[in-house]
């Protein structure tokens, strides 16, 4: 269990709702949900979620901390915004789902090898090191994320798509060797370092109970 997770459990012992309200992006909206079900029914990926948004909001209020934070549900959100457009109470549901996902990752509770979560990490690694997204490397990293054998199988299955993309110049094989970067790589690195400091301070404040 991460240190931050332990600190949060201590701090919000009996109220997960409070914890969400203070620490999750747009979390203060959760209590406004009237449990009508429109968001869950409007979600194109709804049938694949273990807990649709409406249920997640109820679980938060029912103090089901572990079940929510370890759930893969919010990682299924594709940002289609159907739910936000239709919610009669105006909850920014999409943003809350992303807020919950990133909070659970911060606490080290996100489900391992959840594809959206893995993709997010790979994307981040690419952009953080070069200031640019290397699509070829991201694609390969994703295909090989479950080991070399599975990776070869995945790559073979997708080879026609890959060839077509190269033919239409949507993917450049030379990107494999280094790849393009932004002009001021060290500037990007400094900016991210600063952001990390702000974030660390934020987390330290949680731990200190501030």
């Amino acid at each position, binding site marked *: 269990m991460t240190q931050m997770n332990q600190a949060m459990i201590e701090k919000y012992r009996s109220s997960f709702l409070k914890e969400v309200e203070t620490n999750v992006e747009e979390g203060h909206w959760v209590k406004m949900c009237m449990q009508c*079900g*429109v968001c*869950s029914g409007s979600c194109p990926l709804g049938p694949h979620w273990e807990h649709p948004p409406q249920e997640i909001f109820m679980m938060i209020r029912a103090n089901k901390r572990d079940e929510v934070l370890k759930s893969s549900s919010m990682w299924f959100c594709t940002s289609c915004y159907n739910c936000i457009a239709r919610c009669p109470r105006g909850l920014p549901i999409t943003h809350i789902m992303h807020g919950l996902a990133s909070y659970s990752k911060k606490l080290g509770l996100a489900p391992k090898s959840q594809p959206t979560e893995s993709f997010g990490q790979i994307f981040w690694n690419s952009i953080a090191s070069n200031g640019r997204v290397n699509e070829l490397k991201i694609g390969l990293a994703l295909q090989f994320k479950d080991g070399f054998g599975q990776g070869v199988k995945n790559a073979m299955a997708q080879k026609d798509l890959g060839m077509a993309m190269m033919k239409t110049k949507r993917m450049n094989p030379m990107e494999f060797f280094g790849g393009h970067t932004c002009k001021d790589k060290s500037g990007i690195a400094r900016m991210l370092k600063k952001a990390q400091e702000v974030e660390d301070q934020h987390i330290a404040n949680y731990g200190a109970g501030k």
Partner: protein
Amino acid sequence: MSEVIATNQTILVVGGGISGLTAALEAAECGKQVILLEKSPTVGGRVAQLYKYFPKLCFPTCGLEIQYRRLKANKNIRLLTLAEVTQVTGSEGDYDVTVALSPRYVTENCTACGDCEKAVAAEFDDEHNYGLKQRKGAYLPSMMAYPQRYVIDPRIIGTADAEAAKGACKAGAVDLDMQAQSLNLKVGAIIWATGWTPYDAAKIQPYGYDRFANVITNVEFERMLDPFGPTGGKIVRPSDGQAPSNIAFIQCAGSRDRNHLLHCSRICCMATLKQTNYVRENLGDAAKSTVYYIDIRAIDRIDDFHRKVKADANVSFTKSKVANIAENKANGNLVLHGVDTEGYNRYANEHDLVVLAVGMESTVPAGVFPEGFKINEHNFIELDPANGAIYGAGCSSDALDVNRAAQNATASALRAIQVINRVAGQEG
């Protein structure tokens, strides 16, 4: 038209629905002078368009007839139909009101024999039946119209139809030269009771009211039950005229919703419960009703009605706001998609008729009242010192059922009476 006399001891009531009628009668029966303005050719308002009304399920004639009799008997009320207020200025005890009067083209001599109607060919959407039926260009707005006097639709003026109507009238009541008029009234207090209009169901895009024939509204459903209505009193599917066997009612269609009306319309839960009763009465065990709801708002004594409906084996309840509707092209049925709140089960239920329980949208107009006049975020007129002696009544003050609208109207009459008493006291 004989002259309309108004002074700053006159109470003006705007809107002749159940609320306006009640307020006007209460004030007039206390001896005050009242002018009652109604925009349409008849008083009665939306209540006259209901088949029956809860909680006692009596026909609207029952409540309205008594009011009409009181109205006829009272010398203190002057009723003007086809009258609309365009401007109010002034303050408590001293208002100037501008009224636009539209011509009816039929005088007091009308005996309501209907000869003009027979002589006219042109037809238009019948407002009383929400356009589900056509009516002639010379018409009586409804069986229960008051005054019982015909109207000539302005759209036939200047055509051969208008001359035919005039020629057919043995009482000589058709006057094609009638003109629009403007009136200026001086009054001491104003009761605003212009009621409501059904929320436009086509704006609720996922429910497809504008695309699917068998998605209708609750106000249309009321009209279907009327023996003189568009379907002769039968519940049918608009697509094929067949009796439905599996009806869905969707609550809060356009109410309690940031994208539509923010307020709870308060009556649509009860209206639906009432309408499941119509289904049982009309189709017996051949039809089932399912009510999709967020929560049923049947408050205090009307909860008994709710319990009775719950005991009906043909009515079931699903706690869920339907997310969207798709049409089954093969049979015109509707597939309702959503997730329920009792177990979070995903459903795709097929029904052969869907009734949207649309809410009541206030018709309080903009740009008519004196400066600084307060209308709340739901377009209702609340009690507010800033509003002087202009009082909202019935559905101009809140979403109310008939019972509460009448109570509310009586209260506004009492307020207006006190203003007039103060004015009279000052004038000695």
